[in-house]
């Protein structure tokens, strides 16, 4: 499995191989990761070096603590990276936001339509998944520039559902 991992914005190409091998930016490392209690504590060996680490995830943001230092991490796959790069030039600095489905589900309601101006916290889509209705909200102010799903329809994970553009943009 190949991933792109960002640590505090620094990019790492990471490939998880068999037998506990990891290729990171071209370098092979012998890795052994174990959960050491019931929760977020891990013991990680990298080529014999021992690290105790903690991982916490909050609102989709992963934070890693190693030896008292906190790192913000993001792990994406290559496909996602490509999509980002393609979109990056267009979106850069323009305040565009794409609401993607965090899980497969059924679109219960789309309370916005193209042209609507929304505030942070406004609900864009209500998605039902595992018998649970999830309100997916706007993280920023903007104008709805596209609605790609319909009520009653279903989506797969990571499908783009609503796109916001900058206010007055």
């Amino acid at each position, binding site marked *: *499995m190949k*991933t792109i*991992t960002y*640590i*505090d914005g*620094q990019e*790492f190409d*990471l490939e*998880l191989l068999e037998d506990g091998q*990891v290729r*990171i*930016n071209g370098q092979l*490392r012998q*890795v052994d*990761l*174990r*959960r*050491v*209690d*019931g*929760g*977020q*504590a*891990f013991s*990680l060996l*990298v080529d014999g*070096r021992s*690290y*105790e*680490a*903690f*991982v*916490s995830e909050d609102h989709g943001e*992963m934070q*890693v*603590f*190693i*030896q*008292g*230092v906190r*790192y913000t*991490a*993001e*792990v994406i796959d290559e496909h996602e990276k490509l999509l980002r790069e393609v979109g990056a030039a267009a979106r850069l600095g323009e305040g565009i936001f794409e609401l993607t489905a965090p*899980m*497969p589900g059924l679109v219960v309601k789309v309370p916005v339509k193209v042209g609507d101006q929304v505030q942070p916290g406004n609900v864009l889509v209500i998605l039902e998944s*595992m018998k649970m209705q999830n309100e997916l909200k706007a993280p920023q102010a903007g104008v709805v520039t596209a609605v790609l799903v319909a009520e009653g329809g279903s989506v797969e994970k990571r499908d783009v559902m609503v796109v916001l553009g900058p206010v007055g943009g």
Partner: protein
Amino acid sequence: MTFNKVLVANRGEIAVRVLRACRELGLETVTVFSEADRRSLHVRYADEAYLIGPAISADSYLRMDRLIEAARRSGAEAIHPGYGFLSENADFAQLCADEGLVFVGPPPDAIRRMGDKGIARATMKAAGVPVVPGTEGEVRLRDEELIAAAAGIGFPLLIKATAGGGGKGMRTVRTMEEMPAAIESARRESKSAFGDDNVYLEKLILNARHIEVQVLADQYGNVVHLGERECSIQRRHQKLIEEAPSVFVGPDEDFRQRLGEVGVLAARAVDYVNAGTVECLVDADKNFYFLEMNTRLQVEHPVTELVTGVDIVVQQLQLARGEKLAIEQSRMEMRGWAVECRINAEDPFNQFFPSTGHLAQHDVPTGPGVRVDTGVASGAEISPYYDPLIAKLICYGVTRRQALRRMRRALAEYRVVGVTTNIPFHQNILQDDRFNAGYFDTRFVEEQFSLEQAASSVERLPEVAAILAALVAQDRTRRSTRIERDCGEGGSAWKRSVRWKDLGRQ
């Protein structure tokens, strides 16, 4: 005067500390809690626990009537106030006495006389204890009078609230021009914090170190001191690291004795009984000035316990039940060195803002020379209602060097997940050459120490973080794939946890 059941009118680490002392003496224990503290350690450690109100202190821990009622209901015969809350409230001490309850602390009159800083200074001056030059504050000076007095004292000086504490209502003034505005803002802050806008002036002692003396006094006129503590590592007048003995006093036994005698003198001047602390400022020439007397148990009392072997809380309880002081000054000696770091739930990289939330993990260090006093355990909620102190980490060594080595080791072992703490701050201070050499004063943290600069020397391991993040993300993806598949088929959570053991139990 004797008692078998003690109500601890406090919360957090100090409530646990007092409960432990009671338990060691075979006393039954009662504690009280606010709605925010139902799951707290002090509730779990006590023999009995009673709800006294909502989270806000004013409606719970500060409600004298409810404390008295809880004592009545449980049959407690004594009340230990801990520190903070009602511990220095003379009216509460008086109320306990009126209700026939033993207040584990000094007599109301001693609290009262030391509580008003102006009166305290005048009392000390009369007793021959040097005080920082300033307006004694027994009278309420008007702005013009303060400005006139300032010229006599000289600059820089401090404007301080008579009712103040914790840096509130305090202003540093460097020139005469700043005086009027500074007086006004100090009065305003004091009024809002303490309900009283009276302020006084005090000369600002430059390069001062904060050194305090622990005293114990019984009802029969016996007073001893347990040597000094140094608490110069402060930030905005909040102590962060304390030690005993003081590296500044060092091997100067004569100076140590003189400091100790000031402590005894202060206690005698107000007919003090129980444990108390006399705080002094000491300048580079070893001149010392009385600052204030804290008429209660002090947060940093453990460092003195470690170097003297005296259990100060046990002493408080014994003195409160009328026992004669069993410690002789001549046989008292400090042995070794103790350092305390206050572990606060606050973010040292973001202006020390308090951090609240679910304390998912709280694994404290153990092993040789390490003591931890705490009031929280894994799973606790750190609420915004009370002070951010979650634990005191205290390390002992034969020498200061050994104590500091152990502290570094213990800080590295300390595991907190869920809230942000000031542990990185302590780690960086303990790497500082000037701190390690003992060259610091009360302005050290604010003027000479840069956390950002210190932190930039910390080893960063982004590659290790990347490997960890990628593996955890992979694990999570596999897990969620299974959840979808299993739950689509009506699978149970139990089944998934049994099947997915790659990273171990969860």
